[in-house]
């Protein structure tokens, strides 16, 4: 068991490091076309939205656009606080408190 876990961690660390390292080390050597740079500027917003949407809108494998979906309800105050304050810590704390309250009801 122990060997399996270590092998898993070793493999995971290699396949995680390569995509992190390669573009930064290689692409910083070249002047990239302006269009490509524009495209890259959209990547953060695109990746975060793509990660977030399924996490708060899917429950048990299907779309859950209703008030029984705690993650969806708890994300509403998070959006409000994040939009108003742009403060990551406050957003996470508000999210955890909202979720905790929803679970208590």
């Amino acid at each position, binding site marked *: 068991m122990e060997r399996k876990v270590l092998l898993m961690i070793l493999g995971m660390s290699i396949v995680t490091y390569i995509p992190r390292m390669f573009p930064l080390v290689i692409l910083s050597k070249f002047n990239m076309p302006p269009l490509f*740079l524009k495209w890259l500027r959209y990547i953060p917003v695109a*990746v975060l939205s793509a990660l977030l949407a399924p996490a708060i809108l899917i429950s048990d494998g299907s779309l859950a656009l209703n008030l029984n979906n705690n993650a969806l309800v708890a994300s509403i105050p998070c959006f409000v606080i994040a939009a108003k304050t742009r403060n990551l810590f406050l957003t996470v704390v508000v999210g955890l408190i909202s979720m905790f309250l929803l679970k208590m009801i």
Partner: protein
Amino acid sequence: MKNGFLKGVKDASPIVLGYIPIGFAFGVLAVQQGMTVLDIFIMSLFVYAGSAQFIASAMLSAGAAVSSIIMTTFLVNLRHLLMSASLAPFLKHIKTHKLALISYGITDETFAVSSTSVKQQTVSAKYFAGLHITSQGSWIVSTVLGGILGNLVPDPARWGIDFALSAMFIGLLLMQMKERKEMIVAICAATISLLMAIYTQGNWNVIIAALLAATIGVGVEQWNEKSF
């Protein structure tokens, strides 16, 4: 000092506060899924990727093959390729071996912070050292603590600890939102990712949705420029 090590440490503070609940949640779940505290420590040190660690731990306890866990990790973390590429044009002044070290600390969270910083001013390798060491340090400490205290928290999902990850994504996303074009990209990415998560197998939704949505964003931008 303005963009040095201490500025990096300071900019890491919201990440640290976000990592504490997420890391703790991972540690708690991982020991219940059969990992040891030492496994958690090594994983947080060498892999250092929140969502992949959650997924790997769950797959391990479900008896999945090592090869399939590694492949899934690769797919889930392939998005770092895009983040690394988008930092590249801003870091031409930093030496290659330092870039190789900096890249080790690219996560969703550190990227959201650093990609904002590099657009505001020229940042140094020291800034990244401060930001990344502080962030990963807090990740290691909180996952290990979660592992140690894991047996005392019977069912972490019951308290909603796992929502910390989504709350963090919301905060990071809105930090990046400045113009209407970004809103369009966000809506496209969310829709594509959602549809793929519901109707397709595997973990391709994030990377494909991000690639398509960024392309749509550039398309809209080009079209707007030409239309007046």
